[in-house]
């Protein structure tokens, strides 16, 4: 209960910050993408409350906001885990067995790519070439990069984020 209350007040705080940011862009229709990017930076994802506020501030319809949010894979509609795991599925990583590393990650975490664990600890996403092909296959957890991954390194690495 307490935890939920704390979460709510945190969200309220972030919404205030979003309001401030929106001031800068009021009425600028073409700024939709930039505004959404900034809003996600603040809140971490784009809940419907935020989308509604963005629509009002920029004077566009909510459906236009929603269709833009869902078009770009960078935007999240749901909260992400504390640790965001991204596995590179670029060509170089794929050729070097990234799919096997991914299966192991899915198995260890008990979630599929694109999902978040129920305790909001880990989320798992696939990304494209991160520019470290020399270290393929590559897994990134928040800002830590793990190169030359193999399936059996997975459990060991996840232990760092207990």
């Amino acid at each position, binding site marked *: 209960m307490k935890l939920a209350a704390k979460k709510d007040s945190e969200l309220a705080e972030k919404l205030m910050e979003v309001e401030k940011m929106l001031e800068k862009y009021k009425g600028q*229709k*073409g*700024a*939709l*993408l*930039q505004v*959404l*990017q900034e809003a996600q930076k603040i809140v971490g994802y784009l809940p419907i409350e935020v989308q509604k506020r963005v629509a009002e501030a920029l004077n566009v319809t909510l459906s236009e906001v929603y*269709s*833009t949010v869902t*078009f*770009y*894979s*960078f*935007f999240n509609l749901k909260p992400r885990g504390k640790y965001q795991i991204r596995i590179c*599925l*670029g*060509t*170089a990583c*794929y*050729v*070097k*067995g990234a799919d*096997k590393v991914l*299966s*192991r990650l899915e*198995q*260890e975490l008990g979630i599929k790519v694109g999902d978040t664990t129920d305790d909001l600890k880990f989320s798992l996403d696939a*990304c*494209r*070439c*991160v*520019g*470290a*092909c*020399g*270290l*393929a296959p*590559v897994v990134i957890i928040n800002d830590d*990069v793990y*190169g030359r991954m*193999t*399936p*059996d390194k997975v459990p060991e690495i996840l232990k760092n984020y207990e």
Partner: protein
Amino acid sequence: MEFYRAHVLVCRGTGCTASGSEPVMEAFEKEIEKRGLSKEVKVLLTGCLGLCELGPNIIIYPEGTYYCKVKVEDVPEIVEEHLVKGRIVERLLYKERTAEERMRALTDINFYKRQKRIALRNCGLINPEVIEEYIANDGYRALAKVLTEMTPQQVIDEVTKSGLRGRGGGGFPTGKKWQFAKDAPGDVKYVVCNGDEGDPGAFMDRSILEGDPHTVLEAMAIAGYAIGAKEGYIYVRAEYPLAVKRLEIAIEQARERGLLGKNILGTGFDFDIFLRLGSGAFVCGEETALLASIEGRRGEPRPRPPFPAVEGLWGKPTLINNVETFANIPPIILNGAEWFASIGTERSKGTKVFAIGGKINNTGLVEIPMGTTLREVIYDIGGGIPNGKKFKAVQTGGPSGGCIPAELLDMPIEYDTLTQAGSMMGSGGMIVMDEDTCMVDIAKFFLTFTQDESCGKCPPCRIGTKRMLEILERITNGEGREGDIELLETLARNIKASALCGLGQTAPNPVLSTLRYFRHEYEAHIKEKKCPAGACRALISYEIIAEKCKGCGLCAKVCPVGAISGERRQPHVIDKEKCIKCNSCIERCPFGAIVKK
């Protein structure tokens, strides 16, 4: 200005940062401070050197000594030996795979010797966060030259004469495109730099933006002068935070120096540049989709004509070029069109940057003159295929390209030869595949990508690629049917002919090119239900050869599902019902006792 007797350049490109070059740089700073050398030796960060696999990489000047795989623990020794006593630390030098002796300078090693660096000329040489370093290396001299000595038409003529073609994939003549934009009627025009870099196996644009951001700013200003634009936009992927940061710094510094903004260099020419971030949609690399995205909308392509040069951003004439295309402009202006045109081949001038990766010894970024053969790139520069495996194919052009087989390795790299071979130049991904790579699986990999990224606007691409993918999935699952190959070919032809934008028009290429050169692999999957490369999971099973197994139990330990059992020192067995085919046991067994069938 202060004088330093030595400079330590630490690569802080994405690859080296990933392998830990940040702590190495800090260690150098600390150690140099500790030894009271701060006034004599300067530590600098720099952009990607190209040999990311060997990172963290550092170079020490004036000698130009190249050390690779440098760890924090190595730093005191390098400072003591190299910087204090002047003795090279042999054990950290690069060793050629084929030669005994170690190489001292980066320019001595095979990986570098055959390269010609024009677009990458400053990457790994200058500190991208300090504008003076760019200026000291001829930076902004080309802009000064065009503003003071050339008319806009002369600039365009020079670019046209150089023979430069677009490096973003299509290979359209750059000078011609600039001419269209100049000739288009209108007072307000825009210059746009395409830094969306969608090919999932390429990162040259990123390296240029991170390692030499000013070259792109300078070239865009030159283009602005040539076509009559006052504003430019750089569209970069949000997934490239370092590139974004370096561009922000560069734009700020250029504005402070009066190299962007109003009345540049006192010539009365105004030009400013703004950043826009992409948000993870491959199709936004397509020029009309990119413009829609800059305008803040869903990035959906629209039919051309009208071409952006006539009707682009906010309906105004807009010039769009790729990052690498722009990076070639300042050297062309400074050294002249003849110089540029003397490099490369009849129809493809200059150089091209490739990101080589996959099953190859030296992975990284290379810039080679057009006309270099694939064999030279893969064997002489790339050092060949690791672990004694056999070369099977090289993929160029990313999801729009195709796979080129061993028979064509002596083909020179040019726009037209690659297209004739069923692939394309693309943006420069070059992924090498060996005998363990299944070509049907690779075709499926690319089609999964394009299918996933299809914007859904037109049915041939939205539905057609889905049907193709379903067939490929069926084939790799061992459920392929007679007639599937022909069905794939028909679908591919129809999609190519009727899709609205380049994404759909080229999506079938990976399938067509693998069908052209590796049809037997498709047939083996369909008729014999076998994957010759042993890659398609549904078609293989794992077994332990009892005679070879020493019963060490290592495989049972790594198996994530407990599928392996056996007494110590007795042959182990795999329970095929439980096995999820993760390949861990094969990699683990020290005796080669496990096989895939």
